[in-house]
C-alpha cells in the first residue's frame, strides 16, 4: 500500500468541466459514437443489478416469484419495506453501524493525526524506528489478527461489547502514513512564527496544521468510515448478541430467514446500501479526489 501513496499523486487538479481529453478520440464522428455506445453498455451492465434489486423491492412477494423478464409484474407496493422496518432489527443494526463506524472514525482520525504530527515534527529518540515499524505494519492483513484478537477479547471479557467491535479497528498505520506525508509538506515557517509567540506544540497542531490539512483529514475520515461501515469479518466474529450487530453482520445472520421472500431481501439490502450512497452523493468530488491523491481505500 505504501507504494500507492507515493506514486498516484496528481497534485494538480484537472480542469473541472471537461475532464476528458477530446484529443484522445480524435474528431471522428464514428469513434465518438462507438465510445459512447461502449460506455453506455458498460454502465447499463453495472447498474442492472442495482436497478433489478430496486424493482424487486417494490413488488409483492407473489409477483416477484413469478417468472418473466419484465421488471414489474404487478402493482408497485412498499409492503416489503414496511415489513422490514416493522420487524425493527434493521433499524437497530443501522443505529449500531452508525455508532460503531462513527466512533471508529473519530478515534482513528484523532489518534492517527496526532501520531502523524508526532512523526512529522517530532525529534524524539526512536522516531525513525517506530515510523519504520508503522509503515511495515501496513502490510499486515487484518485477517491475520482475528484469531489472537478474539482470544484477547476473551481475556479482557469484552466479547459481545461495542468496545470489542470498535477498539481493534482504530489501528490504522496506513492513515498515519498518509497524514504524515501530508504534514511533511506543510511549510514550517508558519508554525515557527506561532511557536515564537509562545504557542504550545499542541496548539500549533490544532490551530495551524490541522486547519491546513482539512481536505486530507476529511478524505481519511471518509475512508475510515466506509471501511468501518462495511467491515464484516471482525464484527461478525466478536458479536453473537443480535442487539449489538452491525448492518452487514445482522443481515448476514438473517439472510437465510428471508428464504424465498426476495422482495424483502432486496428491501433490506437497499436500506443497508442507502447511507453510503448518500455519503457518496454528498462527498463525491472529495472521494474521487482522495482516491486519486492518496490511493486510499483498497482495504
Amino acid at each position, binding site marked *: 500500500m505504501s507504494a500507492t501513496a507515493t506514486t*498516484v499523486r*496528481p497534485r494538480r487538479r*484537472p480542469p473541472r468541466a471537461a*475532464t*476528458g*481529453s477530446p*484529443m*484522445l478520440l*480524435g474528431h471522428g464522428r464514428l469513434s465518438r459514437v462507438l*465510445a459512447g455506445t461502449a*460506455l453506455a453498455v*458498460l*454502465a447499463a451492465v*453495472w447498474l442492472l*443489478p*442495482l436497478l433489478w434489486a430496486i424493482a424487486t423491492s417494490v413488488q409483492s412477494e407473489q409477483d*416477484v416469484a413469478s*417468472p418473466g423478464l419484465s421488471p414489474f409484474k404487478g402493482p408497485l407496493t412498499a409492503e416489503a419495506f414496511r415489513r422490514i422496518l416493522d420487524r425493527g432489527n434493521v433499524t437497530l443494526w443501522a443505529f449500531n453501524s452508525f455508532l460503531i463506524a462513527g466512533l471508529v472514525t473519530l478515534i482513528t482520525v*484523532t489518534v492517527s493525526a*496526532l*501520531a502523524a504530527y*508526532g512523526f512529522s*515534527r517530532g525529534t*524524539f529518540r526512536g*522516531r525513525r524506528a*517506530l515510523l519504520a515499524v508503522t509503515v511495515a*505494519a501496513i*502490510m*499486515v*492483513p487484518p*485477517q*491475520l*489478527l482475528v*484469531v*489472537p484478537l*478474539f482470544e*484477547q477479547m476473551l481475556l479482557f471479557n469484552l466479547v459481545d461489547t461495542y468496545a470489542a467491535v470498535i477498539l*481493534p479497528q482504530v*489501528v490504522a498505520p496506513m492513515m498515519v502514513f498518509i497524514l504524515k506525508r501530508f504534514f511533511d509538506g506543510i511549510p514550517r515557517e508558519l508554525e515557527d512564527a506561532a*511557536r515564537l*509567540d509562545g504557542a*504550545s*506544540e*499542541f*496548539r500549533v497542531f*490544532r490551530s495551524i496544521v*490541522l486547519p491546513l490539512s482539512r481536505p486530507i483529514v476529511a478524505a481519511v475520515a471518509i475512508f475510515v468510515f466506509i471501511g468501518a461501515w462495511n467491515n*464484516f469479518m471482525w464484527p461478525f466474529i466478536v458479536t453473537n448478541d443480535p442487539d449489538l450487530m452491525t448492518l*452487514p453482520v445482522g443481515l*448476514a445472520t438473517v439472510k437465510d430467514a428471508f428464504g424465498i421472500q426476495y422482495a424483502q*431481501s432486496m428491501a*433490506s*439490502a437497499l436500506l*443497508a446500501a442507502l447511507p453510503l450512497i448518500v455519503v457518496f452523493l454528498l462527498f463525491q468530488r472529495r472521494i*474521487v479526489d482522495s*482516491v*486519486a*491523491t492518496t490511493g486510499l*481505500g*483498497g482495504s
Partner: protein
Amino acid sequence: MTTIAPLGTGRQAGPPGTRADGRRRTGHRGTRSTPGSGLLFVLPFLLVFALFMAWPLAQGLWMSLTDSSLALRDTAFVGFANYAEAFSDPDVWSSLGNTVFFTVVSSVPLVLIALVMALLVHSGLAGQWAWRLAFFAPYLLPVTVVTLIWTWLYQPDIGLANQLLGSFGVGPVGWLSDESVAMWSIAALTVWWTVGFNFLLYLAALQSLPSTYDEAAALDGAGAWRRLWSITLPQLRRTTFLVAMLQVLASLKVFDQIYILTKGGPNGSTRPVLEYVYDVGFTGYRLGYASAVSYLFFALVIVVSLVQLRLFRQED
C-alpha cells in the same frame, strides 16, 4: 480533536520528553526554535498499536507453536508441529489453490475492465458525474448487500441470470451450486463490486498525464487507436503495475463474500485459505493450528508483495 485525554491539557502537554535534548534551557515555553520531542503525540497510537496489533501478532505467532484450543484451557508447546501438519494437509493445499485461482480470474478483469472504463470516461463524453457514479457505486456497498443482491440474481429458477440465459435457450446454470461454475460466479460478483476503485485510480492517472505527446502525435496525423497504443497506454504502465499489485494483494485475502454466499461449497470448491483458517479456528476450535496456517499465508502475502515490488522497481 479537543478531547484527547493525554493532550487535552494543551499547554502543559507542549513538547514533552525534554530529558535528553537539553533545549529546555530557560523553562520558558515556546522559545524553542525546534519542536520538542513529540513523543506524547505518538503515544495514543503506540498504545493502540501495541495492544491491538503488536500483541495479537506476537500472540498469534506463539499460538501457532502450541496446541491452543477454544475448547481446552491448557495449552502445550508443540514446536513446529502445526506448521509441519499444515504442509501435509491436503485441505491447506486445496484452499490455497482456490485462493490462487480466484486471484487470477478476478484480478485480470478487475484491471482490464477498470482500464477500459477509465479510458472511455476520460474520452470526454458528457455526463462524467453519472458514469463515475455507475461504476463506483457498487464499491460502496457492504458485502452483505452485495451478496443479497447476487443471491437473487443467481437464483436458479427465477433469478435474472438464468432467465436471461433462458431467453436465448441456454441453461439453467447452477451459478453457486455447480462446482465448476461457483468460483467464476463469485469472481464475476467481485469484479462488479470492486472494479470502481481501480477505475478511479486509472481515471486519476489519465487526468494527470501531460497532453503534449498526445497533441504532438495528433498534429503528426496519428489516429486515435495509434495514439492510444503508442502513447497513452505506455504512459499508464506505472499505474497498471500499481493497480495490479494492489489488486493481487486484495484478491489473495478473499473471504467475506465467499463465506456468506457458499460457505466454501459446493464440496469445498470455493473455500479460500482464509476461510479454512476460520473453519479450523472457530468451528473446529483449533486456534493453534489456525494460527499456523494464517502465518504461512502471511508469509505468502509478503513474498508476493516483495516480488511485485521488485518488478515494480525494475520497471522504473
